């Protein structure tokens, strides 16, 4: 195997800037750098194929990821294409999965690890929070953990208990972890490539409600999107709507409806919820003077609270109305029958916008 093992002192971030040196890698026997119509989970699969072909140090591991291709098929055909040495079915133990990912990352591999559902991440949290997030600091830069932990998260697919929560704030509250959440096939592809190429640990949360919701043409060119950056999905003068993940779909619908009524919503997809790109949000609010934040996670202690607090700190004089949050309730995620009650709806977002606009 021809491997280039960069140690932590020479992080391979150049990769993110420098375009791929070997043009058109052979991906699954096909040469493709063309646009491909695909849904979010297929875009993830495509990014994994691309990066495994480009970089021999990338390995994929997790429960059911190899032969089965992942329970959501995110890792489909990787084992067939890249072999069992680089695509590993692990025993059923999330703490172990966290630990071995760290061990592998310290030795120059780039593990892309799947935790089957976010609700099962808790056994791995000690490894992620106490070690992955700290290895670079603990060794003053001698070792690092360039690893990605992918987890499907969020509600809306009528799954059993522990399969539907949104606990991104727990992870975002840990210095040293990046938390990235795509909201479309294009961003899933570009952000996952960026996450794998990042020299530090990235938690990549995949909104499974929209895994197969909407197809988009994704260019399989290996171009990464920037991390730590919000994406302004549409510009508008009247109000700033901030969200991420699956709820971006509802937010877009609401923005369409508002436009029909002559209200121009500026829609911002946060994408990296930690570290937070507040500059983009502040710039928008300086223009609109009004802001609604929508997230699926419970309201109290959620990322929305952090955004609102920073608006209070830095944009008080720009604000023409209170900042409102539309969020999940501070209760246990209901089982499938009542999960729609919990999930923030387009109507709730719409009402919040109206309330903020109506404020004198």
């Amino acid at each position, binding site marked *: 195997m021809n491997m280039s093992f960069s140690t932590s002192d020479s992080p391979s971030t150049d990769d993110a800037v420098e375009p791929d040196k070997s043009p058109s890698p052979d991906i699954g026997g096909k040469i493709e750098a063309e646009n491909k119509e695909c849904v979010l989970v297929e875009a993830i699969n495509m990014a994994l194929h691309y990066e495994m072909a480009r970089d021999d140090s990338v390995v994929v591991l997790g429960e059911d990821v190899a032969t089965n291709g992942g329970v959501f098929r995110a890792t489909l055909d990787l084992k067939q294409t890249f072999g069992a040495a680089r695509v590993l079915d692990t025993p059923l133990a999330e703490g*172990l999965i966290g630990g*071995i*990912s760290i061990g592998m*990352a310290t030795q120059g591999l780039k593990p892309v690890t799947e935790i089957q559902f976010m609700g099962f991440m808790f056994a791995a949290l*000690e490894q992620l929070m106490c070690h992955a997030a700290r290895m670079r600091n603990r060794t*003053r830069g001698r070792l*690092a953990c360039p690893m990605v932990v992918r987890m499907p998260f969020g509600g809306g697919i009528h799954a059993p208990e522990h399969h539907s929560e949104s606990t991104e704030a727990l992870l975002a509250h840990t*210095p040293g972890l990046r938390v990235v959440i795509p909201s479309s096939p294009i961003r899933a592809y570009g952000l996952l490539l960026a996450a794998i190429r990042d020299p530090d640990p990235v938690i990549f949360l995949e909104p499974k409600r929209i895994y197969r919701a909407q197809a988009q043409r994704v260019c399989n060119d290996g171009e990464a999107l920037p991390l730590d950056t919000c994406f302004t999905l549409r510009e508008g003068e009247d109000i700033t709507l901030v969200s991420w993940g699956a709820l971006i779909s509802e937010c877009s619908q609401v923005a369409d409806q508002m436009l029909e009524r002559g209200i121009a919503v500026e829609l911002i997809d946060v994408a990296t919820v930690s570290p937070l*790109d507040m500059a983009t949000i502040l710039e928008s609010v300086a223009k609109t003077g009004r802001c609604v934040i929508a997230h699926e996670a419970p309201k109290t202690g959620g990322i929305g609270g952090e955004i609102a607090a920073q608006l209070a700190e830095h944009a008080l004089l720009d604000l023409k109305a209170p900042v409102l949050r539309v969020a999940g309730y501070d209760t246990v995620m209901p089982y499938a029958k009542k999960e729609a009650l919990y999930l923030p709806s387009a109507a709730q977002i719409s009402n919040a916008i109206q309330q903020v606009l109506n404020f004198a």
Partner: protein
Amino acid sequence: MRGRQQFSIHFLQYLDPEGNLDLPLPEWTTDGPLLLSIYQNMVLARLLDQKAVALQRTGQMGTYPSILGQEAISVCTGLAMAKNDVLVPYYRDAPAQMIRGMSAAELFMYWGGDERGGNLNTASLDLPICVPIATQLTQAAGVATALKIKGEDSVVVTSCGDGATSKGDFMEALNLAGVWDLPIVFVINNNRWAISVPLAQQTRAPTLAQKAIAAGIEGIQVDGNDPIAVYEVISKAIERAREHKTPTLIEALSYRLSDHTTADDASRYRDADELKAHWQEEPIHRFQQFLHQQGLWDREQEKALQSHCQQTIDQAVEQYLAAEEEPATAIIDYLHAFLPYSLESQRSAIQHKDASVNTEGESR
């Protein structure tokens, strides 16, 4: 496989507590310099350990976990490893780390509350110690996986205490080592105490080595205070891991002659007679007797060694106490490879913060 299998756990000891031979010596013991190196490193480890406790007691260092009485395990671990092997230690393994390049000053720095003590400048890709119990074991399994994927012939040695064997991480790591045929050696320093909880309250299993059986890997028990037995077992296990990608679990029986850490008082929970009895089995006296009997060591050599160690330690203390402070921004500069722009204002705040108002409290 159906039904009940028969298993047994082998126990290895060459030297009894008086340094007398129980078994014919293994072949490698004809290497006189190696035998002396084991002894010299154990003596250095003990004196350094005493100094670390003294530094803490005099307010010049923070909480410190002594390794008193368990020197043989760590020293033999360090000496049995090849340079390009990877050590994934727990926090009572400083002698092995030092044999692999960590300086005594780094040890003091770490326990003196300075992250630079975890840098281990000279020790290749070894992992630093960490405080949570047993989490290093699954990381070590990951390191071994990486070595295997990369096709390298190096192996991993990882260590833990007896308390760690009660954690899921321990069993998860052993299990994976078996399933994936990992080149890894697990060394348990069974010093019989996890702070105040004796081994009998950790497990009903008569040995810890037998936990290997459930994982389908080799398990062996060794007298951890007998340097010859420890070196023999660890070097053989490393050899097997290197040649055959076969993992081994080693339970080294020792005893924690010290408190758990300098913040602990073992007299609250441990019988004084038990402690006294175990002093009769400690490794340094035993090995010194053996070397005398073999005609490899005399009083003059002992005197020279003591003074050499003292000199090394004095230099390390001097270096530790004279170390220049890291700049304030070091507390955020190593969080990521590149500082996210959103943290720039916090970095600047750190730079301009007068920390003296926060550090006037007494150190423990």
